[in-house]
């Protein structure tokens, strides 16, 4: 699903609640949680925090968020082997990531990029978009 399907209004409709959830899960102030905030780099999120955030988003927005959903969607039509090799994201994989995570500034996509570092790209907006997509999938 391309970003043309998700409007600014749709993102902004989910943002307040998503920001509240992220702030609560990370134990920070709500005004620290901007749309552009990277959860790991700006807000110090760890893997257990991601689990908590996903759990709370599921309950709040009544969606089911499978593990690895963002990366799986970003991979698009590439196979796993075409997306990453030996823990490094391929050029094709990075192109798909950039296109999918259109809310993330270009300069944050390092080259080479380790697959383990993909989560560092995720921002509040990334999660808002995911929620909107899942709500539409019904």
């Amino acid at each position, binding site marked *: 699903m391309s970003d043309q399907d998700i409007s600014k209004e749709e993102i902004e409709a989910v943002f307040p609640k998503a920001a509240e959830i992220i702030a*609560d*899960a990370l134990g920070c102030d709500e005004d620290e949680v901007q749309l552009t905030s990277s959860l790991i780099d700006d807000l110090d999120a*760890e893997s*257990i925090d991601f*689990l*908590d955030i996903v*759990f*709370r988003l599921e309950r709040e927005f009544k969606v089911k968020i499978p593990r690895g959903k963002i990366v799986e969607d970003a991979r698009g039509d590439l196979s796993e082997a075409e997306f990453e090799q030996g823990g490094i994201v391929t050029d094709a994989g990075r192109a798909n990531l950039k296109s999918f995570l259109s809310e993330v500034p270009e300069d944050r996509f390092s080259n080479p990029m380790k697959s383990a570092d993909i989560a560092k790209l995720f921002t509040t907006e990334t999660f808002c978009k995911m929620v909107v997509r899942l709500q539409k999938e019904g």
Partner: protein
Amino acid sequence: MSEHSTKTSGLVDGVALVTGGSRGIGRAVVERLAADGMEVIFTFLSNQEAADEVISENPDRKITALKVDVRDSHACRACVDEIFDRTGRIDVLVNNAGIVRDNLLAGLEDDDVREVLKTNVEGTFNMSRAVVPFMMSKRSGKIVNLSSVSGDKGGRGQTNYAASKGAINALTKSLAVELARRGIRVNAVAPGVIETDMSQEVRDMAGDEIRKNILLKRYGQPADIAHAVWFLCSDFSDYITGQILSVDGGFKMG
């Protein structure tokens, strides 16, 4: 007056989920926690009569029974969702549901191995996976797993059971590490030989030999275990996590 002399268990009005609570140790745990003013929900597999008896014999306590097969992860999740939707909290999880299918290794059938591991280990995984997200969000909680003296010391005719309890010990320690930063303590109680239905056959077959190996020269009672579980659920054990507490009368291998 110093703070520690007035400290209470902190359990009153909390919500506890105990798996396998209709008989034996499970029942004793249910009653002990309920006696401290907790609302206790326990699961049982099929013995409706025993489950009803726990409730009817404790009329002044807040106790509910839910028929849940802990081997079914979806059923565990549904049960926990139901509890949380109704009460808004889960403070304590006691993973007690467990079975034995004793035999010397060469005499074990596929089912004897599979079912013991499925109920004892997977059951603990299933219920913990369902409950932990709620505790994580709340940044507090106590999980107590029922292990066994055989998980550490082994036991003749108990390769499957001992393996399952060894797994519980390892699970307990790993989960304690994972959840510490969310304020959740995870410990286990390892009972010795306790006078319950589950150990009847073992006690009948090898009673005297077993008692020789117990320093305190008696079998344990379900209440002995329930008190230990209660302690690990209470605020008194706030500085304890990742531990396996043996409650076995000083049980020696032999």
